[in-house]
């Protein structure tokens, strides 16, 4: 999303527009500046001394080495971080999703080809959305609204499969998901 889409860019300001329109499109410099600019570039190019470049290289090497040594020899014992709510939600839905998609695959051949295309396109949309929501949650893990979005999206995935799976194949304990659709 670019800035144009933000609210503050949406409102028209006729006075500002008129002032902008009145400005000249180009301004000629009072004198030719290029000879001075070229001279300064040439001067800067001669400033670096060999010993300065060598010192910079050594410093960079030491910094990179320190980073890797630090990462591989962490002084603190690693304790598994507690799972965020959305990670727990992910874990809870995994078996349901697995069973649901298995059931879909088992019955997909019976579907009308057009319907199958629609279903699979939408399952793919949901899959991409789940990835997008997880990315957002990774930066805002305690955002309850995003967590609810994740849960609703999972429910929609389950509901799609329930809606198109031949009814005799729906296990009694999962039939309530039909209600989501």
């Amino acid at each position: 999303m670019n800035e144009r889409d933000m609210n503050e860019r949406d409102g028209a300001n006729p006075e500002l527009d008129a002032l902008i329109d009145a400005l000249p499109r180009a301004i000629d410099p009072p004198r030719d500046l290029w000879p001075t600019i070229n001279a300064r570039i040439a001067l800067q190019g001669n400033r670096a001394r060999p010993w300065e470049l060598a010192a910079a290289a050594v410093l960079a090497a030491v910094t990179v080495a320190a980073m890797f040594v630090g990462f591989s020899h962490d002084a603190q014992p690693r304790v598994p971080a507690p799972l965020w709510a959305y990670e727990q939600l992910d874990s809870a839905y995994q078996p349901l999703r697995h069973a649901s998609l298995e059931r879909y695959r088992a019955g997909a051949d019976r579907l009308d080809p057009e319907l199958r295309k629609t279903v699979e396109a939408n399952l793919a949309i949901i899959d991409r959305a789940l990835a997008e929501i997880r990315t957002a949650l990774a930066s805002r893990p305690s955002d309850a609204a995003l967590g609810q979005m994740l849960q609703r999206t999972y429910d929609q995935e389950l509901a799609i499969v329930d809606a198109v799976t031949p009814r005799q194949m729906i296990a009694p304990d999962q039939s309530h998901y039909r209600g989501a659709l």
Partner: protein
Amino acid sequence: MRALNVLLKLLLKIGLLLSCIASAAHAGEAIDKTLAVKPDGVVRIDNVRGRIEVQGWDRSEVMVKGTLDDLTKSFTFETAGSTTTVKVETPDHLNRGNGSDLVIHVPSASRVRVDLVSADLTMQALHGSVEGRTVSGQIDARDLSGTIVIGSVSGRIEVTGAAGPVTFNSVSGDINAQTDAEQLRISTVSGNADIRSDARLKELTMHSVSGDLDVSSDLADGAQVRGSTTSGFIRLAVNRDVGAVVDLRTTSSGIKNLLSDDKPTREMSGGGTLDMTLGNGSGVLELTSISGRLELLAR
């Protein structure tokens, strides 16, 4: 012994033949049947393909009229206690022939539940509660009240005049509705929803994955509005004098507020937030998006 085997095989063949004849007895058959029922009972309708029209009327009868599917295996029309069942059963693989074409009249106060697969559904003048679902057909409904649930996977949903708590569910089908509902729930995956409510909404819940949601309604005092989308846009138009605590948030998309002079805050991620209190702040208006745009407008 050999004669016995031959006799058994013959009996088996005759049995199979009779069963086929019995199964085919309903295929493509014209139907015109009526049952006396309770005026506020349950009517369940199941059909796979074709066209089903359900109309409420002021008689305590259910009448089924029309033609059954060419490949009907069995047709059930019965009433037991307060439940009436209309069910057309067909084989799993249906790639030829015509579907059922039925007009079903039910008492208008009935609680109606319709489950279709590849069939269009029309519903009219139903004032008990209504649950109408189809997988790939279209749904047209008008003049409904009571608790209303309408769902489709890929078919379009068109509704005019739906009072009572209304739920719309769609996967890829678009929803176009004019309701008089005070409670409204909308859920779509990639389908778009365009909903107008002529009643003051007390509760609005909406969720889409990539579909666009466009809702226009006055909000009652203390209304609870919650909506989310992953990549679709949400455009909500409400009464200018609404009282609500507003919280709009996006991760990487824009927010537009034309309901008040408050400006959204833009974040480094490209997302935005809009926190404000309108009027007496008695209600809640929360919209969340990841990459879809949020718009708040005045009606």
